[in-house]
């Protein structure tokens, strides 16, 4: 201890204690007194005693007189007065530097609006299905199957599984309902006919899904011949009346009575397309084969089971309990038993973002969520960086003001308050502008993101989030000027010797580099995404989509009328050809194995696309032959022929495929023998990014057709042809509405997900570069202004405009080049990862990076040049005159 070395030094700790509690203005006399007395005591007696007494003396000062602080020396204006003054000065500053204010507020507002939209989007994604009150306890019963090609999940299950769960495991469930697939059905009442998706489901479903009833009750489905309609469906059929107890028909054969109308499920629910509910038993009775065969058949997966578990239970325990519910019943079904099925529950909260895809959890939706969220955060960051950069750059200008304020008696805290209130003012202005922007952009955003998001004006959380957002941004953006500017010494500032240090601009430069790194990365990303889409779009499709109509054969009335329809349609002169097929031409609807051909090796057990068609299918869709010939209706033996695609030939390894015999063992059916008639060019039916599935087209196959393909006569327009085609359908199939799809539109849907990413990435890239350039523009103007005198002197000494332009621009260009150097490897690693998941993909060519870099440089140069040339052109007389 220092006091031990110097006996004349009283205990320091006691002094420190005293300083702590004693009012500052009394420190001098009190400490003086104490020290003097200590010296007196030391001289009189010994040090130890004096030290002891010193402590007592210090304690004696613990009295209110000494503790109470002296009131401020200067008059203390109320906070309101000062705040008004700060705001007035802030507004004057904003008005004085209009361009700067515009850049600052505009840039921040754009950034905030983007963050807001993205926040809403993420919220919408995360709140998927929360419309249902029992969201936490609802699940779908699925099974994991371990096949030869790895593990798979099956979300369609067997009828006996439902019976089994209801009989032996009912303690685990509050509700357990079996349901049909959500498919189109024709609903009719009198003359009104509509086609709507809907499901046949057991009576507890409305209660489980907590449907909000407009008319009738949730118990309505208990009536065996009832139907619950969604509000929009009821409106379409019955208009604006209460339709309860009205009679209607499903698919023109099932007589039902409306027993309730429920509010349409919102877009962010899995059941959004379910427009009606009908009793499950009605479906079973309508399909006699179910009663005859499916009730005990563990091989027939044809329905879905939804469950609500008991409140005190959880999904893991129930999943574990029902794991063997299927396996233990498979004694008579060896084929099914070989798959070792495990029954489990997929909770509703995972349906949207953590669903299974080929047996593993699909990370795609979550990745997209993270990606978009990150990009949004970056755009906001860019805007905040602008704000900070411009504020700090201008700090030198404000330094004099700080000096004057301090000289007339401002204390530091007041200055901190001033700068914070200024930054909050700007942030709040920007926020209001952002709200406006977000409102205007929302319809467009909904369009791109395929959402139905509304501004949640009445949502408390939204406002809390906004408030938090404003506080954080204001604090971030205002902290530097508030804490740094307020520390200036008035003497230095006012004397004019004040200079911001050489390195004061380093953080600013770093921030600019960050901005441009993000921007350049986004630009490169956008280009690659667009290239990938374009690459897939340019892929040879192998069939003609123009003027091709697809009509789903939704009810039984469509069947058995093929020849009649074909001749009637062709008679109108509007249709050049018509054929039926299994599934749409834009999908491989069915896949099977069990094929044998000459030279097949045992390992060639992959399944083929197996599609049943009518003879004119090829002519209708315009497929192209490499070898052999098409089916012909005049040649009866063609019914045992097959047309295969290039991929199938390659997989089979046939040198001369034409005329080869192929046999097919489909399940327990008798062996079927085929002859290869022709080989067609590959047709892109599935994802355009994936390799082509080896596909076999047959007339006689394992199942029937379910789609009608109509090729409109190329000489007439679709608008001309459609009414005539509709008339034919109305005449021949009066019980079903005429509903069709265009093949080209269906095909375009395959690009929807990538195009969405592309559009969003493009949008963000443009915004990012815009915001960054705004900031750069502001900085450039600031630098030019700051160096006015220098430029004037240089001009007087003979510098040309070009010299000055280089002088002022090169610093910024250097920053952009550095950002480009950082962005290139970052973008490369991200994008090669993204492209990895596409089999059919474009390359990451060097020129994309080069082009992005050159583009960024060009835009930077353009932005900076405006300011630097403007500054270089100023007459030196003007810039040097004033002092």
């Amino acid at each position, binding site marked *: 201890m220092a006091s031990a070395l110097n006996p*004349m030094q009283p205990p320091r700790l006691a002094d420190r204690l005293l300083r702590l509690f004693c009012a500052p203005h009394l420190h*001098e*006399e*009190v*400490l*003086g*007194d*104490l*020290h*003097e*007395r200590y*010296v*007196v005591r030391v001289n009189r007696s010994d040090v130890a005693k004096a030290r002891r*007494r010193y402590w*007592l*003396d*210090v*304690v*004696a*000062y613990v*009295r209110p*007189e*000494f503790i109470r602080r002296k009131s401020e020396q200067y008059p203390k204006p109320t906070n309101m007065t000062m705040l008004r003054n700060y705001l007035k000065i802030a507004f004057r500053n904003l008005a004085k530097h209009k361009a700067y204010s515009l850049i600052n507020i505009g840039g921040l507002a754009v950034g905030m609006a983007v963050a807001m939209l993205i926040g809403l989007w993420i919220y919408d994604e995360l709140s998927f299905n929360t419309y249902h009150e029992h969201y936490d306890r609802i699940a779908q019963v699925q099974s994991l199957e371990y096949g030869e090609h790895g593990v798979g999940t099956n979300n369609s299950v067997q009828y006996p599984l439902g019976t089994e769960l209801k009989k032996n495991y009912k303690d685990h469930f509050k509700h357990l309902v079996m349901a049909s697939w959500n498919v189109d059905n024709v609903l009719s009442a009198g003359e009104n006919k509509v086609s709507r998706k809907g499901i046949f489901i057991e009576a507890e479903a409305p209660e489980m899904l907590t449907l909000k009833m407009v008319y009738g009750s949730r118990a309505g489905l208990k009536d065996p011949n009832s139907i619950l309609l969604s509000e929009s469906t009821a409106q379409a059929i019955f208009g604006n009346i209460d339709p309860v107890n009205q009679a209607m028909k499903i698919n023109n054969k099932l007589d039902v009575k409306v027993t309730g109308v429920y509010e349409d499920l919102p877009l962010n629910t899995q059941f959004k397309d379910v427009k009606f509910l009908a009793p499950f038993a009605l479906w079973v009775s309508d399909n006699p084969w179910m009663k005859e065969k499916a009730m005990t058949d563990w091989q027939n997966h044809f329905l879905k089971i939804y469950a609500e578990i008991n409140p005190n239970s959880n999904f893991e325990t129930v999943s574990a309990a029902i794991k063997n519910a299927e396996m233990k019943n498979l004694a008579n079904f060896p084929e099914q038993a070989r798959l070792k099925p495990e029954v489990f529950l997929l909770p509703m909260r995972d349906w949207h973002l953590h669903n299974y895809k080929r047996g593993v959890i699909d990370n795609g939706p979550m990745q997209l969520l993270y990606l978009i969220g990150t990009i949004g955060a970056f755009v906001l960051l860019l805007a905040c960086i602008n704000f900070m950069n411009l504020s700090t750059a201008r700090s030198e200008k404000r330094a004099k003001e700080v000096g004057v304020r301090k000289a007339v008696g401002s204390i530091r805290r007041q200055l901190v308050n001033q700068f914070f209130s200024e930054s909050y003012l700007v942030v709040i202005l920007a926020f209001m502008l952002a709200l406006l922007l977000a409102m205007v952009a929302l319809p467009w955003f909904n369009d791109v993101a395929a959402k139905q998001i509304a501004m949640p004006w009445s949502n408390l959380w939204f406002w809390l989030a906004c408030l938090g957002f404003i506080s954080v941004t204001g604090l971030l953006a205002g902290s530097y000027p508030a804490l740094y500017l307020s520390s200036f010494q008035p003497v230095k500032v006012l004397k004019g010797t004040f200079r911001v240090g050489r390195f004061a601009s380093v953080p600013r430069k770093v921030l600019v580099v960050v901005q441009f790194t993000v921007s350049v990365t986004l630009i490169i990303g956008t280009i690659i995404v667009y290239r990938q889409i374009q690459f897939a779009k340019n892929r040879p499709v192998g069939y003609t989509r123009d003027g091709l109509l697809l009509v789903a054969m939704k009810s039984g009335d469509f069947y058995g009328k093929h020849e009649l329809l074909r001749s009637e349609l062709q008679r109108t002169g509007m249709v050049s050809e018509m054929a039926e097929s299994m599934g749409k031409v834009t999908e491989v609807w069915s896949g099977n194995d069990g094929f044998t051909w000459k030279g097949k090796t045992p390992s060639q057990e992959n399944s083929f696309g197996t599609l049943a068609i009518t003879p004119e299918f090829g002519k209708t869709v315009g497929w192209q032959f490499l070898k052999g010939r098409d089916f012909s209706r005049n040649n009866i033996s063609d019914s045992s022929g097959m047309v295969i695609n290039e991929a199938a030939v390659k997989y089979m390894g046939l040198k001369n495929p034409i005329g080869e015999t192929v046999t097919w063992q489909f399940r327990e059916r008798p062996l079927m023998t085929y002859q290869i008639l022709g080989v067609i060019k590959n047709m892109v039916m599935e994802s355009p990014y994936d390799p082509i599935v080896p596909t076999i087209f047959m007339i006689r196959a394992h199942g029937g057709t379910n789609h009608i393909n109509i090729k409109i006569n190329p000489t007439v327009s679709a608008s001309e042809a459609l009414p005539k085609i509709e008339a034919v359908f109305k005449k021949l199939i009066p019980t079903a509405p005429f509903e069709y799809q265009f093949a080209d539109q269906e095909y375009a849907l395959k690009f929807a997900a990538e195009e969405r990413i592309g559009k969003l990435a493009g949008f963000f890239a443009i915004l990012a570069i815009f915001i960054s350039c705004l900031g750069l523009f502001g900085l450039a103007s600031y630098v030019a202004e700051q160096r006015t005198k220098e430029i004037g002197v240089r001009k007087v000494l003979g510098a040309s405009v070009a010299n000055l332009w280089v002088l002022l621009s090169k610093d910024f260009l250097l920053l952009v080049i550095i950002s480009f150097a950082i962005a290139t490897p970052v973008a490369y690693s991200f994008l090669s990862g993204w492209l990895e998941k596409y089999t059919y993909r474009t390359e990451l060519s060097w020129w994309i990076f080069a082009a992005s870099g050159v583009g960024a440089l060009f835009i930077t140069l353009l932005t900076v040049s405006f300011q630097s040339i403007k500054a270089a052109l100023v007459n030196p007389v003007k810039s040097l005159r004033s002092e």
Partner: protein
Amino acid sequence: MRRSDLGEFEEVVLLAVAALSPGAYSVIIAEELEHETGNSVSTGAVHAALQRLEQKGYLTSHLGEATAERGGRRKRLFTVTALGGRILQDVRAVRNRLWDRILPNIRLEWS
């Protein structure tokens, strides 16, 4: 007594200031009182009394010179105001009158 707001300790301190004038400040007052009474007196107590007396207008103060043993700090020197002087005299007169009535006529019987 008219001046009921003058406590006993305050009166002694006020007297000490008058006695030690013009160089009266808390340390020597405390030392003096300790010496005179034999009890320990802290500067804190003295300082507090001085502040109260100044507030009442019996004392004025100013900062004096700094000394080495004070660590270069200045001391606050106190002087009695005219009001303070009159109060002291009042108090003393009251006491004197009372004492006069005891002595020499009556022999004191201390018990």
